[in-house]
């Protein structure tokens, strides 16, 4: 066979002095890099994705994985991956796929925004000793509130409050389907969501029966493939989400590769084993805001009026689209930014379509306020939230809550290698191979994810305390407490943020 002219991305090496030939690397690598050569471990480095599973499980620390030092001649314009992709395309005629969010060096606005703090003139608050409220309710809020006395003379809310999702922190887990990730990975999310008083989202792959006990902490998703959608499913969770788009692949559908469709996934999706699970690019019953309204209310009618979220990718005209979504009757608008993750997307789409979430939050929050309908829906911001600081900045820009996907997977062992589409994840996350998924013990890894959420909650409280405010409500849309560093006037104007020093 013709040898590929696309050089390996990584170089795996074993220190032969240290290697005790225990073969743990062979067992742990889901990619087939290592094999037994009779007296020594053999290495096929072209299969290596640098997921570091072997490194972590080598008892002698004999393994080293580095970026392949034999690269094309250095060129500031023609990067390694550009040349490599052309070579791969020349060999296959195919579209290079990728996983997770874009890693290209576009400006990261979060890193150019800084948060205010109190000094002298208004006191900061110590969250370790004073109450600090992170509880968040997602859903439509009434435009005015009136109270009345009931028979016993106690005050109560006049009229009916629209349905709300109660969160103990403004952080939820983003939609990741059974199929794109393993059932064990979904269980980790479900256990952590329940423990932390937040929610996970099924994504478009149905709800496995093992997850029904966690229904109070689950949002179920309806997307263009309608996988797993039946009346039980719609009524199982606390809300239903209509997925229109995804930040990593705005405007295109999903092809969950056949490698990730064994019997159990096929059964959940009701499609043939080993086929690609096709999610059409549009939902063919939605070609307009009016059509969207029709589906929103079809779901509300079928669920006795549970909250409905509509998830869209952040694109150029996101503010007007979000306004339409709110007017169509959505209770929540889920914005997924340019950096948002994916289990499989053409890299050309992931890296070149959409806009970063920071702009989208500001633009949507502005537009909904201008139109006097900001109370009609909550905003969830997602797409590259890496820390509690990103979360705080997103909330200050106008989000009600953030959603995290990649960060949650990192607690399960993910090293952001970006090969989720192959179904070979050695950490048992984005794979359906039973010998790999069994590695992800839901109870054990849920503990790590719970730790992460608790840590972020503490950090958020510290940030609020430094700001001298005692509830996340007071941070929401509070752009006065953000300053831009090194941003141009127009960007600052769009973000509604002053430059540092002003």
């Amino acid at each position, binding site marked *: 066979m013709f040898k590929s002219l696309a050089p390996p991305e990584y170089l795996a090496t074993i220190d032969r002095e240290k290697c005790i030939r225990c073969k743990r690397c062979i067992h742990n690598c889901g990619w087939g890099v290592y094999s037994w050569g009779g007296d020594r471990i053999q290495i096929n480095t072209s299969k290596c994705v640098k997921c570091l599973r072997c490194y972590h499980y080598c008892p002698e620390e004999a393994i080293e994985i580095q970026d392949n030092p034999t690269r094309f001649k250095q060129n500031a314009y023609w990067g390694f991956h550009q040349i490599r992709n052309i070579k791969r395309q020349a060999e296959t*005629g*195919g579209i290079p796929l990728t996983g997770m969010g874009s890693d290209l060096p576009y400006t990261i606005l979060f890193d150019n925004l800084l948060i205010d703090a109190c000094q002298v003139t208004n006191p900061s608050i110590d969250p370790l000793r004073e109450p600090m409220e992170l509880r968040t309710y997602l859903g439509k809020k009434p435009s005015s509130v009136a109270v009345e006395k009931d028979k016993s003379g106690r005050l109560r809310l006049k009229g009916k409050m629209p349905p709300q999702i109660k969160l103990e922190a403004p952080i939820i887990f983003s939609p990741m389907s059974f199929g794109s990730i393993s059932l064990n990975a979904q269980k980790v999310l479900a256990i952590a969501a329940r423990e932390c008083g937040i929610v996970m989202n099924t994504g478009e792959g149905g709800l496995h029966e093992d997850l029904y006990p966690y229904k109070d902490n689950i949002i179920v998703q309806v997307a263009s*493939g*309608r996988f797993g959608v*039946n009346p039980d499913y719609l009524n199982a969770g606390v809300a239903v989400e209509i997925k229109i788009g995804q930040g990593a692949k705005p405007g295109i559908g999903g092809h969950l590769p*056949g490698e990730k469709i064994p019997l159990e996934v096929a059964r959940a999706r009701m499609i*043939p084993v080993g086929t*690609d699970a096709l999610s059409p690019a549009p939902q063919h019953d939605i070609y307009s805001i009016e059509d969207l309204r*029709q589906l929103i209310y079809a779901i509300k009618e079928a669920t006795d009026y549970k909250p409905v979220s509509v998830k869209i990718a952040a694109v150029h005209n996101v503010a007007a689209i979000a306004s339409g979504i709110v007017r169509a009757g959505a209770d929540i608008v889920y914005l997924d930014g340019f950096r948002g993750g994916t289990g499989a997307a053409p890299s050309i789409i992931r890296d070149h379509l959409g806009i970063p979430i920071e702009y989208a939050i500001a633009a949507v929050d502005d537009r909904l306020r201008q139109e006097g309908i900001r109370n009609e829906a909550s905003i969830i911001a997602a797409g590259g939230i890496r820390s509690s600081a990103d979360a705080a900045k997103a909330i200050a820009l106008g989000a009600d809550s953030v959603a995290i996907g990649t960060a949650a997977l990192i607690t399960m062992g993910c090293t952001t290698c970006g090969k989720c589409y192959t179904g070979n994840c050695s950490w048992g996350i984005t794979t359906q191979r039973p010998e790999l998924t069994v590695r992800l013990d839901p109870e054990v890894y849920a503990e790590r994810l719970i730790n992460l959420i608790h840590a972020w909650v503490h950090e958020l409280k510290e940030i609020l305390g430094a700001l001298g405010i005692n509830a996340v409500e007071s941070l929401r849309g509070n752009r006065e407490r953000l300053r831009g560093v090194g941003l141009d006037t127009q960007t600052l104007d769009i973000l509604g943020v002053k430059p540092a020093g002003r």
Partner: protein
Amino acid sequence: MLEIDAKGAYYRDLNRQVREAVARGEKEIRLKNVNGQYYIGDGLRGASVITIEGVPGNDLAAFMDGPTLRVKGNAQDNIANTMNSGKVIIEGNAGDVLGYGMRGGKLHIRGSVGYRVGIHMKGMKKQAPTIIVGGCAGDFFGEYMAGGVLILLGLDDRDGAPLVGDYLGTGMHGGVIYVRGEVDKDICGAEVGVMDPDDEDRKVLMESLTEYCKDFGLELEEVMKKGFKKLVPVSSRPYGNLYAY
């Protein structure tokens, strides 16, 4: 038999009345003077039989799971959207995007249908949906089809109009489409193979069409007189070579 007069009723009130009646155990319900109300039978469960007089609005029987609906005239778009089980019988014509993502149950239409009917129908073993269209169909019939059975009969004189539009079964990766009459390969999606039905197919057709003919008082023999073509996906992975790994 419960009669509900839908004249001037807001869809939400009408559907609540229907749901409450079904919850009470009402076996037969007749909706009179229906005029465009959305979501009739949406998410409805049980085994009730509901007769609809007039023209029901969009999303009839969306997410429905069990009941039987009979429409005594024409119906509109999005019928049997993601329907799980049960049956919908339309005595007249129906609109676009019928049976989108349908997972089970039956949709029998006596007349013709619009565009994108039976998109992404799916099935797993015995849980599989069936749509039978008596007249003709528009473009993208059976697009993305992943399971179940689609039957197109072309019973009526169409005055020269084509039996089915373009892009027939495009993106098909499961299930089967039967067309009564000849099928020009040029109108089919690239993923579709056209062949003659075998004995197993004739059994499926006989079984499905016996029930269909009974629903509309048609002669099964008359319907079966003309030959059928069978359309199946040529690959269960039509886009397997699209990507570079």
